[in-house]
Protein backbone atom coordinates (compact mmCIF):
# COMPACT_ATOMS: atom_id res chain seq x y z
CA UNK A 1 0.00 0.00 0.00
CA UNK A 2 1.37 3.40 -1.00
CA UNK A 3 1.50 6.44 1.27
CA UNK A 4 2.45 9.99 0.43
CA UNK A 5 3.54 11.93 3.49
CA UNK A 6 5.13 15.24 4.45
CA UNK A 7 4.76 18.38 6.51
CA UNK A 8 2.41 21.01 5.11
CA UNK A 9 3.10 24.67 4.38
CA UNK A 10 6.01 26.71 5.65
CA UNK A 11 6.52 24.23 8.46
CA UNK A 12 10.03 22.84 8.88
CA UNK A 13 9.61 20.58 11.93
CA UNK A 14 11.30 17.49 10.59
CA UNK A 15 11.75 15.19 13.57
CA UNK A 16 8.29 13.62 13.55
CA UNK A 17 8.50 13.36 9.78
CA UNK A 18 11.64 11.22 10.01
CA UNK A 19 9.97 8.99 12.58
CA UNK A 20 6.79 8.68 10.51
CA UNK A 21 8.86 7.55 7.57
CA UNK A 22 10.52 4.86 9.67
CA UNK A 23 7.25 3.72 11.25
CA UNK A 24 5.32 3.49 8.01
CA UNK A 25 8.10 1.45 6.45
CA UNK A 26 8.22 -0.80 9.48
CA UNK A 27 4.49 -1.39 9.04
CA UNK A 28 5.03 -2.43 5.45
CA UNK A 29 3.90 0.62 3.51
CA UNK A 30 5.61 1.97 0.46
CA UNK A 31 6.46 5.52 1.51
CA UNK A 32 6.85 8.65 -0.59
CA UNK A 33 8.11 11.23 1.84
CA UNK A 34 8.02 14.79 0.54
CA UNK A 35 9.60 16.07 3.75
CA UNK A 36 8.91 19.40 5.36
CA UNK A 37 7.77 22.65 3.74
CA UNK A 38 5.44 20.98 1.28
CA UNK A 39 2.51 22.84 -0.23
CA UNK A 40 -0.90 21.30 -0.77
CA UNK A 41 -0.52 21.16 -4.56
CA UNK A 42 2.70 19.20 -4.16
CA UNK A 43 0.89 16.65 -2.01
CA UNK A 44 -1.94 16.18 -4.48
CA UNK A 45 0.42 16.05 -7.42
CA UNK A 46 2.45 13.37 -5.69
CA UNK A 47 -0.64 11.29 -4.94
CA UNK A 48 -1.66 11.39 -8.58
CA UNK A 49 1.85 10.66 -9.78
CA UNK A 50 2.47 7.71 -7.48
CA UNK A 51 -1.08 6.39 -7.45
CA UNK A 52 -0.99 6.42 -3.64
CA UNK A 53 -3.87 5.08 -1.53
CA UNK A 54 -3.19 7.24 1.47
CA UNK A 55 -2.18 10.86 2.01
CA UNK A 56 -0.75 11.46 5.48
CA UNK A 57 -0.12 15.11 6.25
CA UNK A 58 1.71 16.41 9.31
CA UNK A 59 1.50 19.90 10.70
CA UNK A 60 3.29 21.04 13.82
CA UNK A 61 3.80 24.76 13.75
CA UNK A 62 0.17 25.87 13.78
CA UNK A 63 -0.31 26.48 10.07
CA UNK A 64 -2.70 23.54 9.59
CA UNK A 65 -5.88 25.55 10.02
CA UNK A 66 -4.95 27.98 7.26
CA UNK A 67 -4.08 25.18 4.83
CA UNK A 68 -6.97 22.95 5.87
CA UNK A 69 -9.46 25.54 4.70
CA UNK A 70 -7.94 25.34 1.20
CA UNK A 71 -8.28 21.58 0.90
CA UNK A 72 -11.87 21.28 -0.39
CA UNK A 73 -11.40 23.90 -3.11
CA UNK A 74 -8.10 22.46 -4.25
CA UNK A 75 -9.03 18.80 -4.02
CA UNK A 76 -12.04 19.47 -6.26
CA UNK A 77 -9.66 20.50 -9.01
CA UNK A 78 -8.09 17.04 -9.08
CA UNK A 79 -9.98 14.13 -10.63
CA UNK A 80 -9.70 10.62 -9.16
CA UNK A 81 -8.83 11.74 -5.64
CA UNK A 82 -12.17 10.64 -4.23
CA UNK A 83 -11.11 7.21 -2.99
CA UNK A 84 -7.95 8.32 -1.31
CA UNK A 85 -7.74 8.11 2.48
CA UNK A 86 -6.75 11.52 3.85
CA UNK A 87 -5.16 11.76 7.25
CA UNK A 88 -3.76 14.70 9.16
CA UNK A 89 -1.93 14.81 12.47
CA UNK A 90 0.42 16.75 14.71
CA UNK A 91 -0.46 20.03 16.38
CA UNK A 92 -3.42 21.30 14.42
CA UNK A 93 -4.05 24.75 15.86
CA UNK A 94 -2.18 27.83 16.95
CA UNK A 95 -2.20 27.84 20.73
CA UNK A 96 -4.10 25.23 22.71
CA UNK A 97 -7.22 23.69 21.24
CA UNK A 98 -9.30 20.69 22.15
CA UNK A 99 -9.96 17.66 20.04
CA UNK A 100 -13.76 17.89 20.26
CA UNK A 101 -13.75 21.15 18.31
CA UNK A 102 -10.87 20.30 16.04
CA UNK A 103 -11.82 16.88 14.72
CA UNK A 104 -15.21 17.78 13.19
CA UNK A 105 -13.72 20.91 11.65
CA UNK A 106 -10.98 18.99 9.87
CA UNK A 107 -13.41 16.26 8.84
CA UNK A 108 -15.31 19.09 7.20
CA UNK A 109 -12.19 19.93 5.23
CA UNK A 110 -12.18 16.39 3.86
CA UNK A 111 -9.90 14.48 6.19
CA UNK A 112 -10.93 10.93 7.13
CA UNK A 113 -8.66 10.64 10.16
CA UNK A 114 -7.72 13.60 12.34
CA UNK A 115 -5.10 13.22 15.06
CA UNK A 116 -4.57 16.34 17.16
CA UNK A 117 -1.66 15.77 19.51
CA UNK A 118 -2.08 12.04 19.19
CA UNK A 119 0.91 9.77 19.44
CA UNK A 120 2.12 8.49 16.10
CA UNK A 121 1.55 4.82 16.80
CA UNK A 122 -1.96 5.37 18.08
CA UNK A 123 -2.64 7.34 14.90
CA UNK A 124 -1.26 4.65 12.63
CA UNK A 125 -3.30 2.03 14.49
CA UNK A 126 -6.50 3.90 13.65
CA UNK A 127 -5.38 4.04 10.03
CA UNK A 128 -5.10 0.23 9.99
CA UNK A 129 -8.56 -0.03 11.47
CA UNK A 130 -10.04 2.16 8.79
CA UNK A 131 -8.28 0.10 6.14
CA UNK A 132 -9.83 -3.03 7.62
CA UNK A 133 -13.28 -1.46 7.77
CA UNK A 134 -13.04 -0.50 4.16
CA UNK A 135 -11.76 -4.00 3.33
CA UNK A 136 -8.55 -2.60 1.95
CA UNK A 137 -6.42 -4.78 4.19
Amino acid at each position, binding site marked *: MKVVTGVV*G*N*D*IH*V*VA*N*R*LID*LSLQARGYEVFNL*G*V*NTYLEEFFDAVVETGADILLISSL*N*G*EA*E*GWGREVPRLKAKYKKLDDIIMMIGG*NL*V*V*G*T*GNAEDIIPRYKGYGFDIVCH*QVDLNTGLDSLEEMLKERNLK
Partner: protein
Amino acid sequence: MSLLQEEREIIVNNEYVDNFDFAEVKEFVTNASKDLFISHHFKNKPKNKMLVQPRGGFPTYEKQFALSEYFVKANVDVLPLTVDSNTRLNDYATAKKMLRLSEENDVDMLNGYPLVNHGYRTTRKMVTHFNKPVSLRHGTPDARLLIETAIASGIFEIEGGPITYLLPYSKNFPLDKAFLYWKYVERVCANYSKLNEPINRESFGPLTATLVPPSITIVIQLLEMLLSLEEGVKSFSVSFAQQGSMNQDIVTGAVLKKLAKHYAAEINCSDAAINLVYHQWMGAFPMNKDSAEQLINIATVIASMVSADKIITKTREEASGIPTKEANAKTVANTQYTLGILNGLPNVVDEEEEEILTLEVHAIMEAVFNDSADTLWRKVFNSIKNGIIDVPFSPHIINHNNMITIRDAQKNIRIIKRGNVPIPDRCYAYEKGQCDLTKDTTSIVNDIIHDIGIMQ
Protein backbone atom coordinates in the same frame (compact mmCIF):
# COMPACT_ATOMS: atom_id res chain seq x y z
CA MET B 1 25.57 54.84 -5.01
CA SER B 2 27.25 52.10 -2.97
CA LEU B 3 26.43 48.45 -3.52
CA LEU B 4 24.70 48.25 -0.16
CA GLN B 5 22.52 51.20 -1.07
CA GLU B 6 21.55 49.67 -4.37
CA GLU B 7 20.62 46.37 -2.76
CA ARG B 8 18.68 48.24 -0.11
CA GLU B 9 16.52 49.96 -2.68
CA ILE B 10 15.62 46.72 -4.34
CA ILE B 11 14.71 45.16 -1.03
CA VAL B 12 12.45 47.87 0.25
CA ASN B 13 10.75 48.16 -3.08
CA ASN B 14 8.17 45.56 -2.15
CA GLU B 15 4.42 45.82 -2.29
CA TYR B 16 4.00 44.71 1.35
CA VAL B 17 6.37 47.30 2.76
CA ASP B 18 6.13 50.67 4.42
CA ASN B 19 7.78 53.44 2.53
CA PHE B 20 11.21 53.68 4.23
CA ASP B 21 12.52 57.09 5.29
CA PHE B 22 16.16 56.22 5.94
CA ALA B 23 17.18 59.69 7.01
CA GLU B 24 14.56 59.61 9.73
CA VAL B 25 15.60 56.12 10.77
CA LYS B 26 19.21 57.23 11.14
CA GLU B 27 18.08 60.15 13.25
CA PHE B 28 16.00 57.81 15.39
CA VAL B 29 18.79 55.32 16.01
CA THR B 30 21.28 58.07 16.80
CA ASN B 31 19.06 59.50 19.50
CA ALA B 32 17.50 56.27 20.75
CA SER B 33 17.46 55.60 24.48
CA LYS B 34 20.45 53.53 25.67
CA ASP B 35 17.94 51.32 27.46
CA LEU B 36 16.85 49.90 24.12
CA PHE B 37 20.31 48.49 23.44
CA ILE B 38 20.98 45.09 24.96
CA SER B 39 24.69 45.70 24.33
CA HIS B 40 24.43 48.56 26.81
CA HIS B 41 22.86 46.26 29.41
CA PHE B 42 25.47 43.55 28.88
CA LYS B 43 28.15 46.14 29.53
CA ASN B 44 26.57 47.62 32.65
CA LYS B 45 24.79 44.74 34.40
CA PRO B 46 26.11 43.42 37.73
CA LYS B 47 28.61 40.65 37.06
CA ASN B 48 26.48 37.67 37.95
CA LYS B 49 23.06 38.96 36.92
CA MET B 50 21.78 36.93 34.03
CA LEU B 51 19.37 38.77 31.74
CA VAL B 52 16.04 37.00 31.34
CA GLN B 53 14.34 36.92 27.98
CA PRO B 54 11.22 34.98 27.08
CA ARG B 55 10.02 34.09 23.59
CA GLY B 56 6.76 35.31 22.17
CA GLY B 57 4.95 36.62 19.17
CA PHE B 58 1.27 37.16 18.42
CA PRO B 59 -0.24 38.21 15.10
CA THR B 60 -1.96 41.44 16.08
CA TYR B 61 -0.39 44.60 17.44
CA GLU B 62 -2.82 44.63 20.36
CA LYS B 63 -1.94 41.12 21.49
CA GLN B 64 1.78 41.71 21.11
CA PHE B 65 1.44 44.88 23.14
CA ALA B 66 -0.50 43.09 25.87
CA LEU B 67 2.11 40.32 25.95
CA SER B 68 4.91 42.84 26.42
CA GLU B 69 2.96 44.52 29.19
CA TYR B 70 2.68 41.19 31.00
CA PHE B 71 6.37 40.59 30.59
CA VAL B 72 7.27 43.96 32.02
CA LYS B 73 5.07 43.31 35.04
CA ALA B 74 6.89 40.01 35.52
CA ASN B 75 10.22 41.88 35.67
CA VAL B 76 11.55 40.94 32.27
CA ASP B 77 15.02 42.12 31.21
CA VAL B 78 14.74 41.68 27.45
CA LEU B 79 11.52 41.64 25.43
CA PRO B 80 11.16 39.21 22.53
CA LEU B 81 9.58 39.74 19.19
CA THR B 82 9.09 36.39 17.49
CA VAL B 83 8.14 36.48 13.84
CA ASP B 84 5.63 34.12 12.20
CA SER B 85 6.67 31.27 9.91
CA ASN B 86 5.33 32.85 6.70
CA THR B 87 7.38 36.00 7.18
CA ARG B 88 10.35 33.76 7.90
CA LEU B 89 10.08 32.35 4.42
CA ASN B 90 9.34 35.80 2.94
CA ASP B 91 5.75 34.82 2.19
CA TYR B 92 4.31 38.24 3.07
CA ALA B 93 1.17 37.62 1.05
CA THR B 94 0.07 34.71 3.21
CA ALA B 95 1.15 36.58 6.33
CA LYS B 96 -1.03 39.53 5.29
CA LYS B 97 -4.05 37.34 4.69
CA MET B 98 -3.66 35.51 8.00
CA LEU B 99 -3.10 38.76 9.87
CA ARG B 100 -6.39 40.07 8.48
CA LEU B 101 -8.17 36.87 9.49
CA SER B 102 -6.65 37.11 12.98
CA GLU B 103 -7.75 40.71 13.37
CA GLU B 104 -11.26 40.05 12.15
CA ASN B 105 -11.98 36.84 13.99
CA ASP B 106 -10.16 37.15 17.26
CA VAL B 107 -8.46 33.82 16.61
CA ASP B 108 -4.73 33.63 15.96
CA MET B 109 -3.98 32.48 12.45
CA LEU B 110 -0.25 33.15 12.68
CA ASN B 111 2.41 31.70 14.95
CA GLY B 112 4.20 35.01 15.42
CA TYR B 113 4.21 38.76 14.74
CA PRO B 114 4.32 39.59 11.01
CA LEU B 115 6.80 42.43 11.41
CA VAL B 116 7.09 43.39 7.75
CA ASN B 117 3.33 43.67 7.35
CA HIS B 118 2.95 45.73 10.51
CA GLY B 119 5.80 47.98 9.42
CA TYR B 120 8.33 49.92 11.41
CA ARG B 121 6.26 53.00 12.15
CA THR B 122 3.67 51.02 14.04
CA THR B 123 6.12 48.67 15.73
CA ARG B 124 8.39 51.46 16.91
CA LYS B 125 5.52 52.87 18.97
CA MET B 126 5.41 49.68 20.98
CA VAL B 127 9.17 49.36 21.35
CA THR B 128 9.73 52.92 22.56
CA HIS B 129 6.67 52.72 24.82
CA PHE B 130 8.20 49.92 26.90
CA ASN B 131 11.77 51.23 26.63
CA LYS B 132 13.25 47.75 27.17
CA PRO B 133 15.70 46.08 24.81
CA VAL B 134 13.90 43.94 22.24
CA SER B 135 15.35 40.84 20.62
CA LEU B 136 14.22 39.76 17.18
CA ARG B 137 13.68 36.01 16.83
CA HIS B 138 12.87 34.77 13.38
CA GLY B 139 14.58 31.93 11.51
CA THR B 140 14.77 33.65 8.16
CA PRO B 141 17.37 32.81 5.53
CA ASP B 142 16.75 36.09 3.67
CA ALA B 143 16.24 38.50 6.52
CA ARG B 144 17.36 41.68 4.80
CA LEU B 145 14.02 43.42 4.71
CA LEU B 146 13.10 42.08 8.11
CA ILE B 147 16.23 43.50 9.72
CA GLU B 148 15.85 46.89 8.08
CA THR B 149 12.33 46.97 9.48
CA ALA B 150 13.47 45.75 12.89
CA ILE B 151 16.21 48.31 13.41
CA ALA B 152 13.96 51.08 12.15
CA SER B 153 11.49 49.90 14.81
CA GLY B 154 14.05 50.20 17.61
CA ILE B 155 14.89 46.50 17.83
CA PHE B 156 18.61 46.45 18.48
CA GLU B 157 19.30 42.77 18.89
CA ILE B 158 19.10 40.54 15.85
CA GLU B 159 19.20 36.79 16.22
CA GLY B 160 20.23 34.34 13.55
CA GLY B 161 22.84 33.80 10.92
CA PRO B 162 23.34 32.17 7.55
CA ILE B 163 23.87 28.70 9.02
CA THR B 164 21.78 28.65 12.17
CA TYR B 165 18.74 30.19 10.52
CA LEU B 166 19.02 28.04 7.48
CA LEU B 167 19.92 24.46 8.31
CA PRO B 168 17.21 24.04 10.95
CA TYR B 169 14.67 26.33 9.30
CA SER B 170 14.58 25.57 5.62
CA LYS B 171 14.37 22.67 3.20
CA ASN B 172 15.79 24.10 0.02
CA PHE B 173 16.63 27.75 0.33
CA PRO B 174 19.97 28.18 -1.50
CA LEU B 175 22.76 28.24 1.05
CA ASP B 176 25.06 30.52 -0.93
CA LYS B 177 22.33 33.11 -1.17
CA ALA B 178 21.79 32.88 2.57
CA PHE B 179 25.43 33.79 3.16
CA LEU B 180 25.17 36.83 0.92
CA TYR B 181 21.88 37.95 2.41
CA TRP B 182 23.29 37.65 5.90
CA LYS B 183 26.42 39.55 4.84
CA TYR B 184 24.01 42.36 4.08
CA VAL B 185 22.45 42.01 7.54
CA GLU B 186 25.85 42.13 9.23
CA ARG B 187 26.79 45.28 7.35
CA VAL B 188 23.56 47.02 8.17
CA CYS B 189 24.06 46.12 11.85
CA ALA B 190 27.68 47.27 11.74
CA ASN B 191 26.74 50.56 10.14
CA TYR B 192 23.97 51.37 12.58
CA SER B 193 26.31 50.39 15.42
CA LYS B 194 28.39 53.47 14.72
CA LEU B 195 25.54 55.82 15.56
CA ASN B 196 24.91 54.94 19.19
CA GLU B 197 25.53 51.78 21.23
CA PRO B 198 26.31 48.71 19.12
CA ILE B 199 23.53 46.60 17.65
CA ASN B 200 23.95 43.12 19.15
CA ARG B 201 23.98 40.12 16.87
CA GLU B 202 23.20 36.73 18.34
CA SER B 203 23.73 33.33 16.79
CA PHE B 204 21.11 30.60 17.23
CA GLY B 205 22.96 27.75 18.94
CA PRO B 206 20.05 25.36 19.47
CA LEU B 207 19.93 24.49 15.75
CA THR B 208 17.47 21.59 15.41
CA ALA B 209 17.41 21.07 19.18
CA THR B 210 17.64 17.37 18.48
CA LEU B 211 20.76 15.40 19.37
CA VAL B 212 23.19 17.98 17.96
CA PRO B 213 26.63 17.25 19.47
CA PRO B 214 28.42 20.16 21.15
CA SER B 215 31.32 20.16 18.69
CA ILE B 216 28.97 20.95 15.80
CA THR B 217 27.15 23.60 17.82
CA ILE B 218 30.37 25.33 18.83
CA VAL B 219 31.91 25.27 15.36
CA ILE B 220 28.81 26.89 13.92
CA GLN B 221 28.72 29.48 16.69
CA LEU B 222 32.33 30.39 16.07
CA LEU B 223 31.92 30.61 12.32
CA GLU B 224 28.87 32.85 12.51
CA MET B 225 30.68 35.01 15.02
CA LEU B 226 33.66 35.36 12.68
CA LEU B 227 31.44 36.15 9.69
CA SER B 228 29.77 38.84 11.72
CA LEU B 229 32.87 40.40 13.28
CA GLU B 230 34.51 40.44 9.84
CA GLU B 231 31.81 42.84 8.69
CA GLY B 232 32.33 45.18 11.63
CA VAL B 233 29.80 44.00 14.22
CA LYS B 234 31.03 44.97 17.70
CA SER B 235 28.73 43.06 20.04
CA PHE B 236 27.97 39.40 19.48
CA SER B 237 26.32 36.63 21.49
CA VAL B 238 27.19 32.99 21.02
CA SER B 239 24.56 30.61 22.32
CA PHE B 240 23.57 27.02 22.90
CA ALA B 241 20.65 25.13 24.37
CA GLN B 242 20.33 22.70 27.24
CA GLN B 243 21.56 19.35 25.94
CA GLY B 244 20.33 16.86 28.52
CA SER B 245 23.43 16.40 30.68
CA MET B 246 24.40 19.09 33.15
CA ASN B 247 28.07 18.28 32.86
CA GLN B 248 28.06 18.39 29.08
CA ASP B 249 26.40 21.80 29.24
CA ILE B 250 29.02 23.14 31.63
CA VAL B 251 31.82 21.81 29.44
CA THR B 252 30.19 23.21 26.31
CA GLY B 253 29.81 26.65 27.90
CA ALA B 254 33.42 26.73 29.02
CA VAL B 255 34.85 25.63 25.67
CA LEU B 256 32.56 27.93 23.70
CA LYS B 257 33.55 30.95 25.77
CA LYS B 258 37.25 30.14 25.60
CA LEU B 259 37.33 29.49 21.86
CA ALA B 260 35.14 32.49 20.99
CA LYS B 261 37.75 34.72 22.60
CA HIS B 262 40.53 32.81 20.89
CA TYR B 263 39.13 33.00 17.36
CA ALA B 264 38.00 36.62 17.73
CA ALA B 265 41.57 37.50 18.65
CA GLU B 266 42.86 35.57 15.63
CA ILE B 267 41.09 38.03 13.32
CA ASN B 268 42.04 41.03 15.48
CA CYS B 269 38.56 41.59 16.80
CA SER B 270 39.26 41.36 20.53
CA ASP B 271 37.59 44.75 20.92
CA ALA B 272 34.18 43.23 20.20
CA ALA B 273 32.07 42.24 23.22
CA ILE B 274 31.25 38.52 23.23
CA ASN B 275 28.34 37.29 25.38
CA LEU B 276 27.10 33.83 26.22
CA VAL B 277 23.42 32.94 25.89
CA TYR B 278 21.75 29.78 27.18
CA HIS B 279 18.43 28.44 25.91
CA GLN B 280 16.20 26.45 28.22
CA TRP B 281 15.48 23.00 26.74
CA MET B 282 14.57 23.42 23.07
CA GLY B 283 13.67 19.83 22.25
CA ALA B 284 10.45 17.92 22.65
CA PHE B 285 8.71 19.00 25.85
CA PRO B 286 6.54 16.98 28.23
CA MET B 287 2.79 17.41 27.75
CA ASN B 288 2.34 17.53 31.52
CA LYS B 289 2.59 21.21 32.36
CA ASP B 290 3.85 20.67 35.87
CA SER B 291 6.69 18.56 34.50
CA ALA B 292 7.42 21.27 31.96
CA GLU B 293 7.92 23.71 34.84
CA GLN B 294 10.44 21.42 36.50
CA LEU B 295 12.35 21.16 33.25
CA ILE B 296 12.37 24.93 32.86
CA ASN B 297 13.59 25.44 36.38
CA ILE B 298 16.42 22.96 35.99
CA ALA B 299 17.46 24.76 32.85
CA THR B 300 17.81 27.93 34.90
CA VAL B 301 20.03 26.16 37.41
CA ILE B 302 22.24 24.88 34.62
CA ALA B 303 22.39 28.30 32.98
CA SER B 304 23.75 29.60 36.26
CA MET B 305 26.34 26.84 36.46
CA VAL B 306 27.34 27.78 32.92
CA SER B 307 27.53 31.50 33.91
CA ALA B 308 25.44 32.61 30.97
CA ASP B 309 24.93 36.33 30.40
CA LYS B 310 21.38 35.79 29.21
CA ILE B 311 18.84 33.02 29.41
CA ILE B 312 16.02 32.48 26.95
CA THR B 313 13.00 30.87 28.51
CA LYS B 314 10.28 28.38 27.57
CA THR B 315 6.85 27.95 29.12
CA ARG B 316 4.76 25.25 30.75
CA GLU B 317 2.67 25.24 27.57
CA GLU B 318 5.51 24.48 25.16
CA ALA B 319 4.24 21.07 24.13
CA SER B 320 0.68 22.20 23.69
CA GLY B 321 1.05 25.28 21.48
CA ILE B 322 1.91 28.97 21.33
CA PRO B 323 1.77 29.90 25.03
CA THR B 324 -0.69 32.35 26.52
CA LYS B 325 0.72 35.62 27.78
CA GLU B 326 -0.05 34.53 31.34
CA ALA B 327 1.97 31.33 31.07
CA ASN B 328 4.78 33.16 29.38
CA ALA B 329 4.99 35.91 31.99
CA LYS B 330 4.87 33.30 34.75
CA THR B 331 8.07 31.73 33.47
CA VAL B 332 9.78 35.10 33.55
CA ALA B 333 8.76 35.72 37.17
CA ASN B 334 9.75 32.20 38.15
CA THR B 335 13.11 32.46 36.43
CA GLN B 336 13.90 35.77 38.11
CA TYR B 337 12.98 34.31 41.50
CA THR B 338 15.13 31.26 40.87
CA LEU B 339 18.13 33.32 39.86
CA GLY B 340 17.72 35.27 43.08
CA ILE B 341 17.78 32.23 45.35
CA LEU B 342 20.48 30.30 43.52
CA ASN B 343 23.54 30.93 45.60
CA GLY B 344 26.89 29.35 46.29
CA LEU B 345 27.15 27.73 42.90
CA PRO B 346 30.25 25.57 42.69
CA ASN B 347 32.77 26.19 39.97
CA VAL B 348 32.90 22.97 37.95
CA VAL B 349 35.71 22.07 35.57
CA ASP B 350 35.94 18.76 33.72
CA GLU B 351 39.37 18.84 32.13
CA GLU B 352 39.15 15.62 30.18
CA GLU B 353 35.84 16.46 28.52
CA GLU B 354 37.02 19.99 27.81
CA GLU B 355 40.13 18.70 26.16
CA ILE B 356 38.25 16.26 23.92
CA LEU B 357 35.73 18.89 22.89
CA THR B 358 38.41 21.52 22.25
CA LEU B 359 40.32 19.10 20.03
CA GLU B 360 37.20 18.30 18.05
CA VAL B 361 36.33 21.95 17.50
CA HIS B 362 39.87 22.86 16.48
CA ALA B 363 39.99 19.97 14.02
CA ILE B 364 36.73 20.96 12.34
CA MET B 365 37.68 24.65 12.28
CA GLU B 366 41.01 23.77 10.71
CA ALA B 367 39.33 21.71 8.04
CA VAL B 368 37.05 24.65 7.26
CA PHE B 369 39.94 27.10 7.10
CA ASN B 370 41.88 24.69 4.90
CA ASP B 371 39.20 24.74 2.25
CA SER B 372 40.66 26.25 -0.89
CA ALA B 373 38.02 28.93 -1.39
CA ASP B 374 39.01 32.58 -1.14
CA THR B 375 36.60 33.96 1.46
CA LEU B 376 35.44 32.62 4.78
CA TRP B 377 31.83 32.36 3.76
CA ARG B 378 32.73 30.29 0.72
CA LYS B 379 34.91 28.01 2.85
CA VAL B 380 32.00 27.50 5.21
CA PHE B 381 29.63 26.95 2.32
CA ASN B 382 31.90 24.28 0.86
CA SER B 383 32.34 22.66 4.27
CA ILE B 384 28.61 22.26 4.70
CA LYS B 385 28.24 21.02 1.15
CA ASN B 386 30.88 18.34 1.59
CA GLY B 387 29.75 17.32 5.06
CA ILE B 388 32.63 18.67 7.16
CA ILE B 389 29.82 20.35 9.00
CA ASP B 390 26.81 18.08 9.44
CA VAL B 391 23.78 18.94 11.59
CA PRO B 392 21.68 16.02 12.85
CA PHE B 393 18.00 16.33 11.94
CA SER B 394 18.42 19.30 9.65
CA PRO B 395 15.57 19.38 7.13
CA HIS B 396 17.80 21.10 4.56
CA ILE B 397 18.64 19.19 1.38
CA ILE B 398 22.27 20.35 1.40
CA ASN B 399 22.93 18.87 4.83
CA HIS B 400 24.59 15.45 4.74
CA ASN B 401 22.73 13.82 7.60
CA ASN B 402 25.47 11.26 7.88
CA MET B 403 26.51 12.01 11.41
CA ILE B 404 24.72 9.83 13.97
CA THR B 405 24.56 10.67 17.64
CA ILE B 406 23.07 8.92 20.67
CA ARG B 407 23.12 9.51 24.41
CA ASP B 408 25.41 7.70 26.82
CA ALA B 409 24.35 6.60 30.32
CA GLN B 410 24.87 10.14 31.67
CA LYS B 411 22.76 11.44 28.76
CA ASN B 412 25.72 13.14 27.13
CA ILE B 413 25.28 13.39 23.37
CA ARG B 414 27.94 11.23 21.73
CA ILE B 415 28.97 10.82 18.10
CA ILE B 416 28.78 7.18 17.01
CA LYS B 417 29.03 7.84 13.25
CA ARG B 418 31.08 10.84 12.22
CA GLY B 419 30.25 10.88 8.52
CA ASN B 420 32.55 13.39 6.82
CA VAL B 421 33.07 15.45 9.94
CA PRO B 422 36.80 15.38 10.77
CA ILE B 423 36.45 14.28 14.37
CA PRO B 424 40.02 13.28 15.38
CA ASP B 425 40.43 9.54 15.87
CA ARG B 426 41.29 9.82 19.53
CA CYS B 427 38.14 11.85 20.22
CA TYR B 428 36.00 9.58 18.08
CA ALA B 429 37.22 6.55 20.01
CA TYR B 430 36.49 8.36 23.27
CA GLU B 431 32.96 9.27 22.18
CA LYS B 432 32.12 5.77 21.04
CA GLY B 433 33.75 4.37 24.14
CA GLN B 434 31.07 5.97 26.30
CA CYS B 435 28.26 4.12 24.53
CA ASP B 436 27.00 0.59 24.35
CA LEU B 437 27.45 -0.22 20.65
CA THR B 438 27.01 -3.96 20.89
CA LYS B 439 23.28 -3.56 20.29
CA ASP B 440 21.69 -4.29 16.90
CA THR B 441 20.56 -1.50 14.58
CA THR B 442 16.88 -1.70 15.51
CA SER B 443 17.57 -1.20 19.16
CA ILE B 444 19.91 1.68 18.38
CA VAL B 445 17.11 3.31 16.35
CA ASN B 446 14.77 2.78 19.28
CA ASP B 447 17.37 4.31 21.57
CA ILE B 448 17.53 7.38 19.34
CA ILE B 449 13.74 7.77 19.44
CA HIS B 450 13.93 7.45 23.20
CA ASP B 451 16.81 9.93 23.35
CA ILE B 452 14.78 12.55 21.48
CA GLY B 453 12.06 12.22 24.08
CA ILE B 454 14.18 12.10 27.24
CA MET B 455 12.43 15.07 28.79
CA GLN B 456 8.94 13.74 28.14
